[in-house]
């Protein structure tokens, strides 16, 4: 008996009770569809988050500080502001020069952040000024500025504002999502009325004229506001995946940032505690490695210098473990759905035994062996598994496309670009179909065994 003979007999049997066969196949299709969808969802989510992190340079950037800012210290209630003296390494220009010499490092600059208010077209908000060197123009997120351009020198009297800041000011650009605009009651203004326009940067400085207040009982501080006028050079899109330094605010060249007068709270703190030499000039330094594979080595090397490093990238192992758990949980849901459909196969084949009992008896009287009878049932189940598997994968793909579109429609305002939440690959399709066939054959073992042991004499007696 050749494979084509068995297939021919099996398909003939499936055709005989076509409605029941279709229902069984649909049962398997639902199971396989659920399995493939769940696996692709798990894979899609983990791939998208990893991709987002990678494109946002979370795997290449790290923050170096002279003090241990590890969250464990917070948890253990040790003050992060007053670490033990022996743990502090001052961050100075020589530290930056030292870090720049490392072969893995692509970019090093101090993280200088100044608190400020900005005023634009009569609207005022509080934000931060962040000093970013012009070399950052080739790195994310500044390599993809679609509105305006990034500055060319470290002393340009201009700023790059993030889209979030524009929204906080109550403005939006014409090409933005209409739902988002109406939801947040934003005013749409043309690009020309932003790019090249003046932005008032208001900072707080010491007021020497009010220095007497320090010795009086007045609760007023000897400070005043100073306005600096800077041109808006470009608008950068940042999102929730961007690292802290680049997550939003106003970006300006380092020298320009230096010119903007502002009380340096760090300096005041050091001055009052006489700790300037201890903490150094900078609070933290941003280090960017050439490739994410170099991150771990660079981190170890920097830590060898007694510095402390924080990066999302070295949390990748934890993240991968989390994704593995997510993938496993989703796959388990899919497998359970498929196993439920297996009962349909068992039921169909057992019904077939009762209906075809006499036929099996005739076959055995004609010399069919137990193995040949078993093979007919195995192939029937495998056919159900194959057709159900293919239909399930196609159905799963269609449903996941619809779900993906719906999710993108609703989350589009939160996440900038369209995300494929379901990641189908040839291996998922292959594994789902093969798994469906294997499970179907396993489901047919009991019915096939039962059919092969039918007593031909007993079967032929029944009319």
């Amino acid at each position, binding site marked *: 008996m050749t494979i084509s003979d068995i297939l021919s007999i099996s398909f003939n049997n499936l055709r005989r009770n076509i409605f029941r066969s279709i229902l069984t196949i649909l049962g398997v299709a639902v199971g396989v569809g659920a399995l493939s969808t769940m696996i692709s969802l798990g894979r899609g989510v983990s791939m998208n988050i990893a991709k987002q992190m990678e494109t946002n340079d979370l795997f290449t950037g790290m923050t170096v500080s002279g003090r241990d800012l590890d969250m464990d210290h917070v948890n253990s209630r040790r003050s992060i502001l007053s670490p033990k003296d022996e743990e502090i390494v001052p961050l100075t220009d020589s530290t930056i020069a030292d870090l720049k010499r490392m072969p893995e490092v692509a970019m090093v600059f101090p993280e200088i952040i100044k608190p400020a208010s900005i005023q634009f077209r009569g609207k005022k908000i509080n934000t931060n000024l962040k000093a970013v060197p012009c070399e950052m123009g080739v790195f994310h997120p500044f390599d993809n500025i679609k509105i305006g351009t990034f500055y060319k020198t470290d002393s340009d009297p201009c700023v790059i504002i993030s889209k979030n800041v524009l929204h906080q000011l109550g403005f939006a650009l014409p090409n933005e999502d209409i739902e988002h605009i109406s939801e947040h009651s934003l005013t749409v203004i043309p690009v020309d009325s932003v790019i090249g326009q003046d932005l008032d940067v208001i900072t707080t400085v010491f007021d020497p004229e009010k220095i007497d207040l320090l010795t009086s009982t007045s609760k007023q501080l000897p400070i005043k506001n100073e306005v600096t006028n800077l041109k808006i050079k470009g608008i950068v899109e940042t999102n929730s995946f961007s690292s802290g330094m680049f997550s939003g605010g106003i970006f300006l060249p380092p020298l320009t940032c230096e010119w903007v007068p502002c009380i340096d709270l760090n300096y005041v703190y050091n001055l009052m505690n006489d700790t300037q030499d201890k903490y150094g000039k900078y609070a933290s330094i941003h280090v960017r490695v050439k490739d994410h594979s170099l991150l771990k080595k660079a981190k170890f090397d920097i830590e060898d210098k007694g510095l402390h490093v924080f990066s999302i990238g070295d949390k990748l192992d934890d993240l991968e473990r989390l994704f593995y758990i997510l993938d496993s949980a989703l796959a388990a849901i899919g497998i359970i759905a498929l196993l439920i459909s297996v009962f349909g196969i068992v039921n169909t084949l057992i019904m077939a035994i009762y209906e075809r009992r006499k036929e099996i008896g*005739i*076959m055995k009287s004609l010399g069919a062996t137990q193995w040949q009878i078993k093979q007919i049932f195995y192939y029937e189940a495998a056919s159900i598994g194959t057709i159900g598997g293919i239909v399930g994968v196609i159905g799963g793909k269609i449903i996941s496309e619809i779900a993906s579109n719906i999710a993108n429609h609703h989350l589009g305002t939160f996440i900038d670009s369209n995300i494929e939440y379901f990641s189908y690959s040839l291996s998922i399709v292959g594994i789902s179909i093969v798994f469906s066939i294997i499970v179907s054959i396993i489901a047919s073992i009991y019915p096939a065994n039962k059919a092969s042991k039918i007593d031909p*004499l007993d079967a032929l007696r029944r*009319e």
Partner: protein
Amino acid sequence: MKHNFVIKKLTLLKIQNLSKTYKKGDNKIYALRDISFDVEKGEYVSIVGKSGSGKSTLLNLLGGMDTNAEGAVYYDNRNLLEMKERELSNYRKSVIGMIFQSFNLIPSHTALDNVMLPLIFSSFPRALRRTRACELLYNMGLYNRALHYPSELSGGEAQRVAIARALANKPQIILADEPTGNLDTATSREIIDLLQMFNRKHQITIVMVTHDKETANRVSDKTILLSDGEIIKTTINKPVYNLDDSSTQKPQFNL
């Protein structure tokens, strides 16, 4: 000069002290009791008896369909009652062809597919399978009914399809269980003549169960009369050959 020719008979089946019992309450009922006889090659044996005499039970034991009995049924020096399932399948596939009173054709298969079925199980070359089945149906006068389903055939046609199916693997023995039981007199005669022709012309051994003593005596070499599971009489007949009878149309058959 006078020559004495001794014709050496070849025994195909040797039945020795075959008994089959079943229990009814505390009583042991004999379906067959101490049956012994031989079936020679080319012999036409009829087993005759009333309903419940054990005819079909005996035939099922000869066909390897039932092995739950005492005694022995030898084929080729091997006891069928001790054979494993696989050996029994091979025996049913290559040694015997079975014909049933109710034809036992598979209703979802065409006549052609029914005839091809034993060829599939015996791994007959796929390319030749259809030709062989068509030849058999043609010889049975059923070529134009090859693609018909059993429900579209008359009783006589269905039984001829069943005979074609039994002959598909060129068996040594045909076991026929009341082959004319569901047929009218004329069709019964046709079927009996067909079986007789196979026996005489092609030396196919036939063991036929029937309740028709007259037909049995007419066509068979040996008639075994069963009653309550016991052989009460074995008659050696001089069968009447109808093969040269030109008054009736006989099928020309090549196996």
